[in-house]
Each structure stands twice: as structure tokens, then as C-alpha cells.
């Protein structure tokens, strides 16, 4: 039996939730961003805003130039997470196999349930209606025999549409499309492929996988298979999702800076966030990676690997700081990131921690702090220096 996959993509999700929350915004150019007066980027733009050329990922300053009368709203993650969970529950009414792909996208394996609703198209139609009636939100649905074709089908039918891409459609409908319409191809990959003389998904499909592998590594092979409409990756519901391979956080500084003291404070805030997430998930990390993006958007990453896994905020911070100190800052820094990988669940005893001969005490303090946060919220207790810097 051929698989049947449904991709559900919420239309202009964050902006639509804000419109629901404040009905006077409806029909206006709404853009959801970080700090509207800072230098954040547009996370979502309503369709009226898109008519001005605004798109997701665009700096707010650029968006303001294109759409001077636009309404910029600071994003409210709690509102979006709550709504996303509601949509996911509605999807689960139609099949138990629902994979959240992002906060506003879901893959559903409807192979075994489509017939119950009169086929895949009718199921998609009923689900769209259920989501609209229950939440007030519109979405686009894509149907295909795998994730790649289902997602491409929804991409081609936004907003508020239903698209179908079958294997028979590959040559006629998929291969004639420009590269960026293919799931997995962003601006950078597209530019590289353009340089190799490829313009359409069909061009990519014709290229030998070995050639793409040489240029893009494993991703190259995946791109080639996707262009041919081949994808056997399963839809995995949340319960069966593989455990995280890394945990990381990034922070865009309020303004570019080369002051190491300020950078180290930001690094401490990030280390604390990563540490908290590591401990919540029951992991220790052997590798700590620091990402540094300079004012001109040049980005470098540096990593260090230890023999023993670590999980305390200060341990992570010490490793991250060592990395930062080893980097010559040729320019002011725009963004910092800390990530923990090489994750292990093994509990190793720390012999000594940056001169503190009683690591057990520090473990206990951290556990106590974690318990306080569990009970009273993430901001109930934190480092004084981070509050001063406005990082947490």
C-alpha cells in the first residue's frame, strides 16, 4: 500500500494568532518580530504586509522601509506554543501519527485513516475546516506519497489551499519548478546550485548524486533524492522522536560590541540556559561549541571536547569562555551562541571544578536552583550579573 502523507502548514502563523488576539489588526500589514525598536528580524508577516515585499527573516529596519505604516508586534512565544499544541491535538483526531515539524507545521501519516474520511483530499478538507472552526486559523495542506512531495504540494498552494503531488506528477509539476520550491533548499544552497548551472528542480534531479555529494556531502545525496521525489523518511510522532543530539541557544546582542566583559556576560547567560535544558533532559555534554557572528555577518564556530560530560552552568561557561578567549576579535560581535553536544546520560563524578574543591556542593546548589525554577518559574532566581546586563 502506498504511503499517504499530509503536510499541514499554518498560514502566517504568528501574525494570524496576533490578529485573532486583537481583531482590529485584521486585514492590516502586521509583522511579528523581536524588539520592534531594536534590530530584530521579522518572524512572520501577514499577507497584507507581504504585499509590500516584507518576508520572514528580513531585518525590522528593512521591513519598516518597505512598509512604513506596518504594525510591528513583539512576538509572544507562549501564545504561539499554546495555539500550536491546540492545532496538533486537532491533527491527532485524524491520525495518531502526527510529527510536529516546527511550531506551525505538522506531518501526518494518513495511510491508514484517509479512507475513513473519503480519501486524502477529503480528510485534508475536513481537518482544515476543523482547525478553522476551532481556532479561527487558516492553514494549507499538501498531500503526497512522502514528506518531500507533501511539503512541496503545500508550498505551492499557500495560503488556505490543498495541494496534491503524486509520483506521476514529478516530471510535469515538480521538475519544472524553480529550485527554491524544493523542501530543503534555502538561499545559500540555491546560489551554489545556480553557480553549477542549475535553475530548476529538474536540473537538480538530472545531476548525478556523486557530483552533489562531492559538493554538499551527505546533504547533496538527499537533495538529489528529494528532487527526484524520493523520500522514505517516516512520520514520527512526538513520543517516538529520537533524543536530541545537541542543545543550544543563541543571543543577538542589543548592539555590536567588542568588549570582552559584555561578551562573557552574554556567554554566561547562554551557558545557564543550555545547562538548564541539559539537566532537564537528563544529559551531560562532552562537547561545547561557541558560535560567534561578527557585525559583517561573518560567522565562526569553535568547539572543545572533554573526556567527561558536564552539565552545570559554570562548567559550561568555563569551557565557552576559554573558547571565546582563544578567538581574536577582528570586529565587533553581533551574535553569540553556545551549544552542547556529544550528549551522554552517564553520571560521572567531577574531581575538581575551576579551583572549587567541593563540586558536590555546587551540584547541590544547582539542583536547589533548578527546583526553585521548577516551582516558581524560570526567572524566579538567576545570576545578578545577568539581570544587570539585561540578558535574562
Amino acid at each position, binding site marked *: 500500500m502506498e504511503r499517504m502523507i499530509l503536510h499541514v502548514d499554518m498560514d502566517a502563523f504568528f501574525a494570524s494568532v496576533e490578529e485573532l*488576539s486583537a481583531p482590529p489588526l485584521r486585514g492590516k500589514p502586521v509583522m511579528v518580530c523581536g524588539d520592534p525598536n531594536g534590530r530584530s528580524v521579522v518572524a512572520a508577516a501577514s499577507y497584507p504586509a507581504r504585499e509590500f515585499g516584507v518576508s520572514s527573516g528580513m531585518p525590522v529596519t528593512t521591513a519598516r522601509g518597505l512598509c512604513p505604516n506596518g504594525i510591528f508586534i*513583539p512576538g509572544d512565544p*507562549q501564545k504561539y506554543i499554546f495555539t500550536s499544541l491546540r492545532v496538533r491535538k486537532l491533527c491527532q483526531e485524524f491520525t495518531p501519527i502526527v510529527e510536529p515539524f516546527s511550531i506551525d507545521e505538522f506531518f501526518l501519516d494518513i495511510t491508514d485513516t484517509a479512507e475513513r474520511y473519503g480519501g486524502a483530499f477529503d480528510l485534508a478538507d475536513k481537518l482544515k475546516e476543523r482547525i478553522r472552526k476551532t481556532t479561527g486559523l487558516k492553514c494549507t495542506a499538501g498531500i503526497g506519497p512522502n514528506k518531500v512531495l507533501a511539503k512541496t504540494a503545500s508550498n505551492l498552494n499557500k495560503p488556505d489551499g490543498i495541494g496534491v503531488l503524486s509520483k506521476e506528477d514529478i516530471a510535469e509539476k515538480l521538475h519544472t519548478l524553480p529550485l527554491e520550491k524544493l523542501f530543503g533548499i534555502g538561499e545559500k544552497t540555491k546560489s551554489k546550485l545556480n553557480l553549477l548551472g542549475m535553475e530548476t528542480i529538474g536540473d537538480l534531479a538530472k545531476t548525478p548524486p556523486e557530483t552533489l555529494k562531492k559538493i554538499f556531502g551527505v546533504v547533496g545525496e538527499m537533495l538529489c533524492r528529494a528532487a527526484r521525489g524520493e523520500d522514505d523518511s517516516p512520520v514520527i510522532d512526538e513520543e517516538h522522536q529520537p533524543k536530541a543530539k545537541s542543545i543550544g541557544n543563541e543571543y543577538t546582542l542589543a548592539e555590536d560590541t567588542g568588549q570582552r566583559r559584555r561578551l562573557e556576560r552574554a556567554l554566561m547567560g547562554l551557558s545557564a540556559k543550555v545547562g538548564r535544558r541539559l539537566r532537564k533532559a537528563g544529559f551531560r555534554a562532552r562537547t561545547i561549541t561557541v558560535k560567534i557572528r561578527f557585525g559583517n555577518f561573518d560567522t565562526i564556530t569553535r568547539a572543545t571536547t572533554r573526556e567527561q560530560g558536564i552539565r552545570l552552568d559554570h562548567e559550561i561557561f568555563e569551557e565557552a569562555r576559554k573558547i571565546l578567549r582563544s578567538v581574536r576579535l577582528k570586529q565587533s560581535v553581533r551574535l553569540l551562541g553556545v551549544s552542547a553536544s556529544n550528549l551522554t546520560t552517564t553520571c560521572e563524578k567531577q574531581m575538581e571544578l575551576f579551583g572549587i574543591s567541593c563540586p558536590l556542593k555546587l551540584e547541590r546548589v544547582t539542583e536547589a536552583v533548578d527546583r526553585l525554577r521548577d516551582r516558581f518559574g524560570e526567572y*524566579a532566581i538567576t545570576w545578578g550579573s545577568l539581570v544587570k546586563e539585561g540578558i535574562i
Partner: protein
Amino acid sequence: MIEEIGQEIDVIARFQGGKVTPVKFRWSGDTYFVVNVPFKWLSREGNFPQFHFSVLATSGDVFEMRLDSQKLRWVLDKVQMEG
């Protein structure tokens, strides 16, 4: 225009059938009547749920307020003034 407020406010609310609905509230010396509640959501601060309401007032403005279940207080988070 959206203004972040973060002030505790007095609210008269209806608790009925396991649901809570703000009816009127006082802020900055003015009393506002709630026309409708277009959106509700829930978040958590540690163990304690925060019940959020986006309310449309007779003034035409949209207010985002929340019932903090830990401290049993109402907080006005944001105001979105019309125009």
C-alpha cells in the same frame, strides 16, 4: 500602538462553569467594560498556571491581561490602542 504595561489591576470577572471571563477592570483611574474576549491562552510560571486573556474593551482598545494563579492577582501585560 502597543504598550507593555506589567501592572497589577482590579478586575471584576465571572467564574462560571469552570471558566473565568473578565467583565470590567480599572486601569490608570479609568474603568473599562469588556465587549468580548477574542483570545485566551495558558502559560506556566513554574508550577503555577497563568490564565491569559486578550479582551476588547468598549473604548475599542485591546488589552492583554492575565490571572496569576500563584499570587491570585490580575496583571495587565499589554495595551493595544486603536489608531
